[in-house]
């Protein structure tokens, strides 16, 4: 049974691909509208070197953005957790920035970064998108210590610093892990969206490969780039999920 449920998703994919191939051939669908899986595969192999370079570029920008977002979000969350006034001051701004679609602010960042540095605008935009899950996770994690445990720290005369280092920060660990996992997925999305809006080939990421192939009606190449994008996004997600699981097991001791 276990082996069967592991095989099931692959079997479904195989069935879909077979039906798709058959339909394309039987109905003579024009390849610019919907290429058959076989031609997508051919395009994947043919453009593999340039796709790999573009994928590495997108991944690098997303990871750079994630790192930037993580440092900023953790620092701001720490500051906010130490000062109620600061929290109340920051909250509406944070919500405002969070609900504004990244597509809407992207052109602004492209202008600020300058035409010669589209990569900087993309990293900044992806970082904005990745910032919020880490920030809100860190803020609620730092505030979610067991109240009785907090009373014990008071009873034993713990200082503010001791409470932060020995109670609040360790309590926040699971929240931070979850926040980073969600942020990793969002960083990829942010990087792709930002690259679309930047609209130039300057950044040379996967989004550009999709746009380029689309403009030339090379639909098979579009599919090849989309598949590559899905693959790197999925690998990043699973990598973070595995890390979260291991880190949580270590945190809980099992």
């Amino acid at each position: 049974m276990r082996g069967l449920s592991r095989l099931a998703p692959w079997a479904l994919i195989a069935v879909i691909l077979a039906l798709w191939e058959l339909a394309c051939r039987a109905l003579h669908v024009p390849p610019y509208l919907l290429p058959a899986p076989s031609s997508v595969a051919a395009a994947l192999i043919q453009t593999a070197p340039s796709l790999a370079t573009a994928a590495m570029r997108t991944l690098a920008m997303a990871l750079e953005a994630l790192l930037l977002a993580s440092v900023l979000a953790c620092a701001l969350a720490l500051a906010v957790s130490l000062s109620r006034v600061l929290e109340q001051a920051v909250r509406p701004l944070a919500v405002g920035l969070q609900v504004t679609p990244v597509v809407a602010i992207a052109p602004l960042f492209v202008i600020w970064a300058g035409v010669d540095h589209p990569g900087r605008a993309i990293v900044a935009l992806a970082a904005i998108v990745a910032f919020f899950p880490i920030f809100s996770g860190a803020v609620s994690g730092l505030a979610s210590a067991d109240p009785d445990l907090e009373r014990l720290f008071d009873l034993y005369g713990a200082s503010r610093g001791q409470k932060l280092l020995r109670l609040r920060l360790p309590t926040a660990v699971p929240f931070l892990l979850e926040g980073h996992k969600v942020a990793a997925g969002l960083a990829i999305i942010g990087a792709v969206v930002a690259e679309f809006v930047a609209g130039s080939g300057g950044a040379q990421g996967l989004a550009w490969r999709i746009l380029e192939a689309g403009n030339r009606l090379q639909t098979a190449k579009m599919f090849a780039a989309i598949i590559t994008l899905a693959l790197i996004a999925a690998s990043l997600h699973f990598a973070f999920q595995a890390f979260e699981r291991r880190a949580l097991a270590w945190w809980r001791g099992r």
Partner: protein
Amino acid sequence: MPANLPAAPPVAALEAVEIAYPKRGLALGPFTLDLAGGEIVALVGPSGCGKSTALRLLAGLETPSRGRVRRAAARGETSVVFQSPTLAPWLGAAANVALPLELAGMPAREAMALAGQALQRVGLAGSAAARPAQLSGGMAMRVSLARALVTHPKVLLLDEPFAALDEITRRALADDVLSIWADERPAIVFVTHNVEEAVYMASRVIVMTPGPGRRAGETTVAAPAPRAPGFRASRTFRAAAETVSLQLADAMAREAAPP
């Protein structure tokens, strides 16, 4: 106080304390309690009568709206055990027990050695490295008890510490607490809603009214401590339990039908 114990000087006292909250109004009091060194007092009352609040006042974790709290014990000489074990999940059992010592500035190695002894005391010498998630409810409660004992407190405050445990485990833990008390003689205030447990543990059982909690009655349990094996079947035990139950029923009835 049982006749076989000499009168000890008070280690803590609540003098006509009241706790009032802005929205709920009066939650406790006026309530008075003198705690002599080395005695065991049980506070029995219905949920919401403010018995846990009284405990927090004694611990200095809350300040009364009116009245006074006297505490002869210095900081670090009072320990609390809560209803849930309240352990840090990211620390092993010994590290949890060592926490009060480390917070007071003791070097980690020394604190861990003393924590090991405290764990041995509650029968968990083999679980020093185990994390709270790996312990049963009863074991986690013992770790919590060891953490309270590691500082050798003069006042030990127990807030329904066995409420979440099964009957067999809670009886075993009650005997453990009594044997520890026999060795170190801390003053113990024990909050419970279980009449039999109160009578088994305490030399004085104070019954509280429904909130705002006031004193509804007090019963002295005239039996040597720690308890003899057949104590639960003795006439003294049954008589005291009946007196406490009647006081409790009386306090509840007065609440239900105000004059």
